[in-house]
């Protein structure tokens, strides 16, 4: 996703000289193509995220579209008040980019686990939030962030994720979710890099004789209310998947809509259940420990369908 983001940003920068990028002293190697082509439009702000975001707001006030790049929680939680007061409130054209959503930096420890960022960024009025699920979605959302006026949050995964979409995501307009796979018994809704596990879970379910639809939400704020309504009515049972704390995150966003519909649809949220992890391990290991790997997702979906049948 990192490289897809850089590729898309490079295209945008070629077409629009108002676009600049600030980094909080991170992106070794990754940002090199941008440095090479646009040395005057890349600013290393140093390890000073608060002031970097304040500067980005100031630059935006002079007509720039400013991408602010860092990893994990550093571009969000650290300068949160600058994002709120200096960017979101005046509607500054600042695009906060996080590489490493979820457990990407698993073995580096709790400080590097971005597992509350979706909830926190989603709570800020005026911030459009993207969490692409694969490289094609990363490209599409990067382009969308440029087109979207005001402050955006772009939550990327890592580098070299497997593709979920065969080709590019063409003609995508936020906040529409993307149907990855059609199904009839349960819908698996996914936002962010965990999409690979969600899609794999559907394939496992198929082998168990269960037909699961997979829908990716590259944009988790605003939410496509009509799409969620349609899914809730069609399936009556939704399973949300996020590599993130379930408190206030993507699943919560779905629950907020479904609860107000009052149509009796059940929603179960896969994610971290209100905890930090002190377990050491890489991304996939931690997903398995916390029940977010494909097999755990498939098991949860199967159990939910079983409960539904038993209830009936």
């Amino acid at each position, binding site marked *: 996703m990192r490289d897809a983001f850089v590729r898309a940003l490079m295209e945008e920068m070629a077409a629009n000289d108002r676009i600049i990028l600030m980094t909080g002293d991170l992106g070794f190697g990754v940002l090199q193509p941008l440095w090479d082509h646009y040395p*005057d439009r890349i600013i290393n702000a140093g390890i*000073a995220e*608060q*002031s970097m975001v*304040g*500067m980005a707001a100031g630059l935006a*006030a*002079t*007509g720039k579209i400013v991408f602010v790049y860092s990893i994990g929680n550093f571009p969000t939680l650290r300068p949160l*008040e600058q994002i709120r007061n200096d960017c979101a409130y005046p509607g500054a054209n600042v695009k906060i980019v996080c590489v490493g959503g979820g457990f990407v930096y698993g073995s580096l420890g709790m400080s590097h686990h971005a597992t509350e960022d979706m909830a926190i960024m989603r709570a800020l009025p005026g911030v459009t939030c993207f969490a692409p699920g694969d490289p094609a979605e990363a490209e599409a959302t990067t382009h969308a962030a440029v087109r979207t006026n005001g402050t955006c949050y772009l939550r990327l995964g890592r580098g070299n994720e497997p593709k979920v979409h065969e080709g590019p995501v063409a003609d995508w307009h936020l906040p529409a979710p993307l149907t990855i796979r059609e199904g009839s018994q349960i819908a698996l809704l996914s936002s962010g890099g965990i999409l690979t596990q969600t899609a794999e879970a559907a394939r496992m379910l198929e082998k168990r004789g269960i037909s699961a639809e997979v829908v990716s939400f590259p944009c988790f704020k605003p939410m496509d209310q009509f799409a969620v309504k349609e899914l809730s009515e069609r399936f009556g049972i939704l399973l949300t998947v996020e590599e993130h704390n379930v408190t206030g995150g993507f699943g919560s966003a779905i629950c907020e809509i479904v609860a107000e519909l009052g149509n009796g649809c059940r929603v179960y949220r896969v994610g971290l259940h209100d905890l930090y992890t002190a377990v050491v391990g890489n991304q996939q290991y931690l997903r398995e420990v916390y029940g977010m790997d494909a097999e755990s997702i498939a098991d949860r979906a199967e159990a939910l369908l079983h409960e539904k049948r038993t209830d009936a």
Partner: protein
Amino acid sequence: MENYEGLVHRGFSAAPDVQDPAVLAWLIRRNGLEMSRISRGSHIGSVFSVAEIIAVLYTGILHVDPANPQMPDRDRLILSKGHAGSAVYAALAETGFFPVEELKHHYANGSILSGHVSHKGIPGVEISTGSLGHGLSIGAGMAMGARMNGEDWRTWVVLGDGECDEGSVWEAALQAAQFKLDRLVAVVDYNHMQSLFTVEKTLQLEPFESKWRDFGWNAESVDGHDVRALRAAFERAMDNAGSGKPSVVLAHTVKGKGVSFMENNILWHYRTPQGEEYEAALKELEAQRP
């Protein structure tokens, strides 16, 4: 509120010589006193300490036009110590950005004039502040953007001394020097008092001037109530464009300046003058009417 309207109509505002910094500073205090009384809002001590700084900026230093507040080549002013917002509101109103009568709605329900300075709906305010430690970073970004755009307007940021406890101020200080933002000028309202104690008893800033120099800035200290000295210091800071360094003016001020019982009294960071205290303050200010 009736009282205030009466005073407005009596003409302490919209004085013909509003371009005289001493007159504007007095008008800032005079309006500030009314706004504080009517709103029962706090921070009058800060408004009084920063009065000359704001007055000098709006009388010939800032390139701004009240008839065209969004003029592209205007200088940008950020009041980073947003709690002294009524000083900027008063200066903007008195110099013609919006009607002086609006000032009486400061803090009021449904008003646009919040206690901390806001840009929403107020001509002449660049950006809202209120949480300390934000303004210098935003100013550095504006200065960098101007340079990238090949524009030669300046960015001014007014900071509080207590505000300089915030780490983000020093992040911005490093960045502004690193990026050689020599059309960025910071002015510190150095009144030596914070919210609970003096600066010295809270987090000592001295040696303050050399701290800024060590961070790569041009720095000088000045009497922050001497309008001629302030103007000269600001002009020197403007002349530093081309030096490759941002500039800071440490304006030594007195919290509560202008009303004897408020001066250097920590009480007046939060206290609002009512009744006899208001009358006494009014009497002292009226005796100073330029």
